[in-house]
């Protein structure tokens, strides 16, 4: 019997793939493979045709120039992405893509970059960069460990749940203690690190929902990944 296939799509790997975003793709792929799935990796760049079958979507951050390059394309794709999100497709949007998943990003020079509004969130450019090791507490995922590096300050709409509450670091805006956002099976966050290697609970949430949505079941084998726990505790103990 052939292995069940999962179609994993990386959004804008050419322009939005910085600070280890590729690591998230690697981890999702490996954790699926270890559970007997065959992973078809699709790279989607501006102008590409969007694949018919998509089970899991990952996207990352970029330089300002990278964001400019993808913005028009992303707006065109917005309707499709919203449909998929509402249909339960798990997605991970890090940093720059998180910002563009919201309604808009107003830069500190007043320029307004329109987002796709998949998330009820809004970002304004801040005066400084929020940089450093970051730790969150999340009701769903426990302790989440990562590294933030952003100048945009994001505020969530009243009904949007954050990804977690900051116990070390600045989070969405440095003010309200929230970090990231959650909508359906979409996880949005500022955390690099990469996020998924040191947060296997988050990775497995994404792969579980990808498999369940497509096949109705998930081959839920507990994975023992070496160095994972130690890497988590080392990172949590480091200075900001």
């Amino acid at each position, binding site marked *: 019997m052939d292995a069940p296939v999962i179609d994993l799509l*990386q959004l804008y*790997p*050419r*322009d939005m*793939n*910085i*600070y*280890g*975003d*590729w*690591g998230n793709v*690697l*981890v999702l792929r*490996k954790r699926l493979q270890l559970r007997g799935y065959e992973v078809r990796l699709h*790279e989607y*760049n501006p102008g590409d045709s969007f694949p018919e079958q998509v089970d899991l979507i990952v996207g990352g951050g970029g*330089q*300002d*120039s*990278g964001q400019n390059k993808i913005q028009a394309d992303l707006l065109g794709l917005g309707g499709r992405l919203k449909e998929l999100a509402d249909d339960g497709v798990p997605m991970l949007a890090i940093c720059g893509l998180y910002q563009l998943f919201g309604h808009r990003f107003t830069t500190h020079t007043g320029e307004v970059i329109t987002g796709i509004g998949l998330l009820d969130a809004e970002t304004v450019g801040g005066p400084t*960069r929020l*940089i*450093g*090791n970051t730790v969150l507490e999340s009701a769903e995922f426990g302790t989440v460990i990562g*590294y933030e*590096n952003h*100048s945009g300050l994001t505020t969530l709409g009243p009904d949007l749940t954050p990804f977690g509450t900051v116990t070390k670091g600045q989070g969405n805006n440095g003010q309200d203690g929230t970090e990231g956002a959650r909508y359906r099976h979409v996880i949005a966050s500022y955390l*690099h*690190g*990469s996020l998924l*290697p*040191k947060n296997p609970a988050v990775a497995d949430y994404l792969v579980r929902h990808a498999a369940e949505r497509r096949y109705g079941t998930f081959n839920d084998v507990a994975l023992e*990944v*070496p*160095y*994972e726990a*130690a*890497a988590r505790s*080392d*990172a949590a103990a*480091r*200075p*900001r």
Partner: protein
Amino acid sequence: MRHLLATVVGKTVRVVAKLRGGGSALPGLIAEKIDPEFLPRTLGRLPHGVVVISGTNGKTTTTKMVVELLQGQGLKVFTNRTGSNFTRGVVAAVLGESNPAGKLGADIAVLELDEAHAVHFVKLVPPRYSLLLNVMRDQLDRFGEIETTAGFLRKIAEATTEAVVLNREDHRIAGLAAAVTAPEIRYFGLTPDLRRMFPGDDEMRSGATGEIAALPDADVVLSACDGPAATFTVDGRDVDARLKLTGVYNVYNSAAALALARTVLGEAADEAALLRSLEAVTPAFGRGESLTVNGQPLDLVLVKNPAGFRLALKSFPAAGFRTMIAINDNYADGRDMSWLWDVDFDSLAEAGVDEVSGVRANDMALRLFYEDVPVGRVDTDLTASLRRFIELGPGQPKRIYCTYTAMLALRRELGKLTEVEVVS
């Protein structure tokens, strides 16, 4: 008179600071305070002016190359050797080498400047020549964005008065041509087949270098590179050199140094002597060294950003070598470990990595797990790791990839453990 006072006071403080074992910047700070014109005036008198070298990767070794190339042509060169690559550090170095009247006995100054500090420096002292190497993702937890760093380098390009030498293959550097007001722009570059060896940060995932626009002609092109043997196309002619520097990025930077030296020297350049000088250059301290430990070769390879690490892995084949990786995340290394996920480690998959060490050893080991690279031992204790590593496979050559502070610690430890002979 003010100048004289600043020199005397500065020199005195320098001696005192040395006795206390203090840093090299303090006397510079004092001289700057007493006489803000000190630096422009002293450096402005040099007959061949000031050369500024900047970029995120390889400036220390490139500066060393340029200095030795110009010295080989009989020039007296002033440089900031102490690694004080910021303005006060330059003031301190100038104080150290100027006579009591504040005159620097040199023909030309060749200065390595940190991108951010260079902006301040070029306002004080507009360089006659500048060499801008690259903008790679590095120290982003300090500067935030590659574009910010490129903006710093643009200020250097704008302030340069005679000629700017640019890396044709780095699109952010080549793009600075638009900012140049100096009468001359020169380039160094690569042939198309070598270009594949140098993926930039932007091209990392797409593999190819993307659409190649019409490139400007380069003064010096690195056209072949095989271990220490390099071929440069200079002015359309191929010239061969056998270098002491290894690693393709070092070899490429020697094309940069050659282009800059040719620009400075103009018609007076003695090409045969330039090549002899280039062949004699050894790496700058702490930038990767070949040592002999217990009679066996041991290479220390500094890695500090994804592009550099990728290039290092491409430069040094793993077969036949024992490998150790030591990753620290102190301030000087950069705290963000994300970069480890932007390096392809598959070239190590066959031979494996014997020891993984440093403060973030577990992050590194986890990275290798996800790339199916076998790992021997993981130990955050550098000393313990190093001891085991040098006992391994007697007679086998060894290589340690390490971040900056890990390299300093390893050097210290090696000095204690064994007789260390620096080969290059």
